[in-house]
């Protein structure tokens, strides 16, 4: 059977939708000064921003895995009162303007903050405006992606595998490590990549909570923003790097792991 011809109106609107996303990319490619691209990207500021971005995004992903996987397991396997409210709370950063997240982080971990003051006075730890703060800001906005993906993965694992493991003598911790985690490996991977990509692009919460200190908290997005004022061609080159990295990841993962179910 031949597929029916799709209605022209729908196709036209869909094409406009594609153009809306494609045009900015084409604009970047058009404005890119290819001859000076290498030297633009090889400046110490750009390289240091790139290095910092990689460190911060991977650190945020690691922190997200450490805290997010257990959280996802609890959401998927442990029914408790108020679970929906708690889950909504930990999903909030996905919809919150990142700059609001940054303000909230400052209020909590800042020098006069809820915990920050205690950390500062008691332990001499000052988080704001450090690389650690950039990592926290990135984790704050990116971890929900990981938690949601992994939770969905754990929910789709046949619970009876875990029961079979129990009858073989495995305790909960062994089951989690040797049965549940391997079975959710695809979701784990997808969640980690989504989390990393979001952390790589983080701007608002970082600049609010961590500031814009070159080499310390100035990640790629911040460097792009700053370069727009002074050297737009560097901003364009950095933007393109960010864009291509993200696009490459999404294409590589497209069907295998990022299926919308």
């Amino acid at each position, binding site marked *: 059977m031949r597929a029916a011809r799709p209605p022209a109106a729908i196709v036209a609107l869909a094409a406009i939708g594609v153009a809306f996303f494609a045009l900015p990319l084409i604009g970047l490619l058009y404005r890119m000064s290819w001859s000076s691209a290498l030297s633009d990207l090889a400046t110490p500021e750009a390289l240091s921003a790139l290095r910092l971005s990689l460190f911060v995004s991977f650190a945020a992903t690691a922190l997200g895995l450490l805290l997010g996987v257990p959280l996802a397991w609890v959401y998927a396997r442990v029914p408790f009162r108020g679970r929906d409210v708690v889950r909504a709370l930990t999903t909030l950063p996905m919809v919150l303007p990142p700059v609001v997240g940054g303000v909230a982080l400052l209020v909590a971990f800042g020098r006069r903050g809820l915990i920050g003051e205690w950390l500062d006075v008691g332990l001499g730890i000052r988080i704001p405006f450090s690389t650690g703060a950039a990592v926290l800001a990135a984790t704050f906005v990116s971890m929900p992606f990981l938690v949601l993906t992994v939770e969905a993965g754990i929910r789709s694992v046949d619970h*009876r595998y875990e029961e079979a493991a129990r009858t073989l*003598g495995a305790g909960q911790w062994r089951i989690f490590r040797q049965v549940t985690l391997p079975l959710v490996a695809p979701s784990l991977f997808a969640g980690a990549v989504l989390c990393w990509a979001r952390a790589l692009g983080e701007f608002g919460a970082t600049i609010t909570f961590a500031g814009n200190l070159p080499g310390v908290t100035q990640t790629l997005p911040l460097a792009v923003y700053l370069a727009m004022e002074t050297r737009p061609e560097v901003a364009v080159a950095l933007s393109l790097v960010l864009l291509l990295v993200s696009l490459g990841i999404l294409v590589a993962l497209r069907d295998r792991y990022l299926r919308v179910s």
Partner: protein
Amino acid sequence: MLRADIQLRLGTLDLAVALEAAPGEVVAVLGPNGAGKTTLLRALAGLVPIARGSVVLDDVVLEDAAARSYVPPERRPIGVVFQSYLLFPHLSVRDNVAFGLRARGRGRGADAVAERWLERVGLAAYADARPSALSGGQAQRVALARALATDPRLLLLDEPLAALDASTRVSVRRDLARDLRQFEGIRILVTHDPLDAIALADRLVIIEGGRVLQSGTPAEVTQRPRSRYVADLVGVNLIRGHALAGRIALDGGGTLISSDATEGDVFAVVYPRSVSLHSRQPEGTPRNVWRGRISAIDQQGDRVRVAVDGEPTLVAEVTPAAVRELTLAEGGEVWLSLKATEIAVYPA
């Protein structure tokens, strides 16, 4: 020795089953879907808590609802073969079999033990394979090896043959019977297939609606069914009534004359082949003769089963030729006769 008294409610199921099994015994729990068979196994394994009763294995109390004692599944000496086998897809066949050994702190030499078990079930060559590379019958044997590798005292099998297609079932059933004989502990399997139950078990326990209807050797159960379910499985007519001086007053109406001397509340079994059908009232002596209306005609190979509503309602088995000669048709009237000597009677 297993002594279990399992009482619990789960959804619409109200389960109350007492079960005993001697060492070395193979018990088949047979019943229709929804009878509570799988829940019974899960309760024995500790995967479902019991509301009342107890589970005692080799004088060790695994669960006692009254005393609030409960040994979790991971600490019960019980192996389980699940209906869909549930081999871990991310582990090799060897690691699947060794999983229980490692989990129970016997990781040293676990690979060697696992390989010995794979040899015993004839799958040593598949040690490095993934479960997805196995056929249904092979997966079942790996699941069996995995359950037995930890030396359980009790082996539970949930519908061990249900996941297989008809063509491999016969050979897998034979292999399973052989593999089960190698294990010396108690074996309990649940199934809805009487052939599996009879082929594999020393003793049958028939459950329906969460209750034990009957228990005994396969011969006892099939010769003296005590439930409609078993009678249907065996293909006989089962009628309840009250016997007095050779006359059985049937619960569903009507009377049968029997040459059996048993008195009181009884079951009467009538083989469909013993029932004769006639288009006119038959003449003759000490026979049971009554009229009925045909409700269904069902051809099975070279025999035809004719269900007749009457007092009593039962199924007669005749030849296709007889169906033509008597011009039997659904909804038509027919006379039935049955010799008094052809009725097996035993106390209810």
